[in-house]
């Protein structure tokens, strides 16, 4: 089921580009070119609303205000005026995020994905990354269905990464929050644990990626 996205953008060129990118990213966009048309839409039918602030007809913030009276749909605001007051007003009125023009298509799509991904995060204790499945609550790890035995520290490390899949976790945070400061500590020990963890994960080891300058990350889309 493709997620529906409502785009409110008056510029034809930009509107066409965004619609094309949304199609490529497997969304189902609907594009309206002015605020009055936007007011006629049912926001709850969409997974996301991309709203340009400078619109003919109703002003973008009025559309936002109207949408917020009936719906909690995530709203991503596009703003050409890099103006703080505009942004603050939009955020106060309930906008979830904004992208300032000029923006790269990738930049916009990253924000779209970020908005749509968020609620999924809180859903359950089970994280799937390729062949790797981590059940944070039951403290079970499987690779391609086969359970893997991990030490407490190894599991805690994996769970710390798995709780925020796709996000880079700094080494010092892992050292502070996962390792036992009494017995072990320091970056060297961390590297050793990670190395052991990767070995035990076998083929799924590439899911635990090193992030330059930061630390480690659980890759959710492996093999790209």
């Amino acid at each position, binding site marked *: 089921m493709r997620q529906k996205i409502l785009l409110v953008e008056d510029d034809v060129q930009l509107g066409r580009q965004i619609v094309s990118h949304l199609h490529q990213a497997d969304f189902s966009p609907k594009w309206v070119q002015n605020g009055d048309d936007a007011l006629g839409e049912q926001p709850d039918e969409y997974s996301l609303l991309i709203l340009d602030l400078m619109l003919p007809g109703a002003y973008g913030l009025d559309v936002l205000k109207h949408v917020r009276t009936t719906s909690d749909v995530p709203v991503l605001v596009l703003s050409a005026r*890099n103006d703080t007051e505009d942004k603050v007003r939009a955020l106060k009125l309930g906008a979830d995020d904004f992208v300032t023009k000029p923006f790269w298509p*990738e930049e916009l799509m990253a924000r779209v994905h970020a908005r749509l991904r968020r609620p999924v995060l809180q859903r359950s204790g089970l994280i799937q990354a390729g062949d790797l499945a981590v059940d944070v609550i039951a403290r079970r790890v499987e690779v391609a269905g086969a359970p893997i035995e991990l030490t407490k520290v190894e599991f805690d490390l994996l769970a710390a990464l798995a709780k925020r899949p796709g996000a880079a976790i700094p080494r010092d945070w892992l050292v502070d929050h996962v390792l036992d400061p009494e017995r072990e500590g320091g970056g060297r020990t961390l590297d050793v644990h990670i190395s052991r963890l990767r070995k035990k994960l076998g083929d799924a080891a590439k899911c635990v990626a090193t992030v*330059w300058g930061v630390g480690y990350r659980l890759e959710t889309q492996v093999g790209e």
Partner: protein
Amino acid sequence: MTLRRRLGLTVLLTAIPLVVGLIWLWERLELRSFEDGLRTFAVTHMESQGRERCEENPTTWGGILGGRPPPRGRRNDDGPGPRRGRGPGRGRGRPPPDGFRPPRRGPGIGEDFPFDPPHRDERRPPDQRRGAMGDPPAGMPPRPQRYEIWAYAVDYLSDNPRAPKFPQALRANLDAGEDCAGESLEVNGRPSYQVAVPMAWTTGPCAIVIMRKIGVEPPATARELVWPAIILCGVLLFAVLLTSGPIVRRIRRLTTQVRESAAERYATPVDASGTDEIAGLARAFNDAGDELRAHVQTIEEREQTLRRFLGNTTHDVMLPLTVLQGHLAAMRKQLEAGEDLDPLLVNASLEEAQYMGSLVHNLSAVAKLEGASPTISRYPVDLVELVERATARQKTIAGARGVELNHAVPEGEVVVEGDITLIEQAVSNVIHNAVRYNEDGGHVAVVLRNGSGRFSLRVLDDGPGMPEELLARLPERRFRGEEARSRHPEGSGLGLHIARDVAHHHGFDLAFRPSEHGGLEVEFSGPLYEGSDDM
């Protein structure tokens, strides 16, 4: 209308009606009191045997009362009019004792009316009531005053044929219900006054009595005050005009000075010596002028700053635009020739476009930051979202350059107080620099941490880095490391300059140090917004 004229007119318009009204009121009261005296005299006389005698001899009763001249010759002092400065012994409103002799010797009219002269009486028009006529010529002894009394039935007719005809004017007044009506008249060429008084009874020949006082005029002392009042008004007017003179002159001088000051854009203050209201006005004007001057100065400074930056950066914008046009033209040629697009050319175009966008944003940031009073909004700003946005913006260029750009943020929010646009621009500039001066295969990492009420935002790279002596000078405007200049000649040091200013205005620390990975590490750090939770 000038201030002076207005003041003079106000004085006249207030004083004249006031004086006229007071004089009129005084005169009315005087006359009223005089009439009351006559009336009381008439009533008392009639009630003490006057009535009886009249009813006994209605055809002859009436005429001059008593026969003795008044003990004093002065007109009004002994009359029933208002007394001036008399002792309390002479009761007010009591019948004047002069001339009245209570009947002691039986019913003889002659006792009551020793004189019975035929007389002419003529009412004088009111405008002649005063004047030399009533007064004895100077040097001659004053003729005695005397009283006459006449009785009438309710139909205003007298049984006494010698009684004068009842005056029409008095009759009209009594008919109107008044208990006493008076008028001036002349009797035998002497100024006189008479009152008609209805008695408590309505039958018999003396239901109404006319009491005359001959040789006296109704009091009109108030009229003597007219001339002094006019003179007083004149003096008052003169005094007002005189005192307003210096005030008007000072106001005129102040007006001239204000005009001159305004012509010089308020550079010279006006004379504000003195402690009165006009000096206060002058001081208020000087204050307003100071404020205006400061305001104008701020605006001029801001305008100059803007103009300077516009001038500095116009060529910076035109240059990448020219380069971009060249790249696009070259790509079109490649397409026309059926060749593959040169990826270097495409990437270079992307970079030029990115650079132009950030340059324009930087320009608007500078407009906010420079000038006498930077316009910085202060709202809670979530750095987690901000880092994600700023990183996403640089990802395209990083990808095109083959530079890996990663970021790490804590879970939840990291909130600081400040201007979201400026902070984002500052962070973007630092990331942009790290990406731009890195090489293919290089890395840039953005790490946001928080704890103990502070945040730390580090941007590290494994680029060429920078010698220690240059690090300190890094955020100086228009300074770039030599290496950077050669690799990005169209760049501008504006970005780091803005990062430094934004950090300064927000109370953040901005540190540049060699990164452990060989490149540069830039760290923003500062206090969290109160109410934000540590991770």
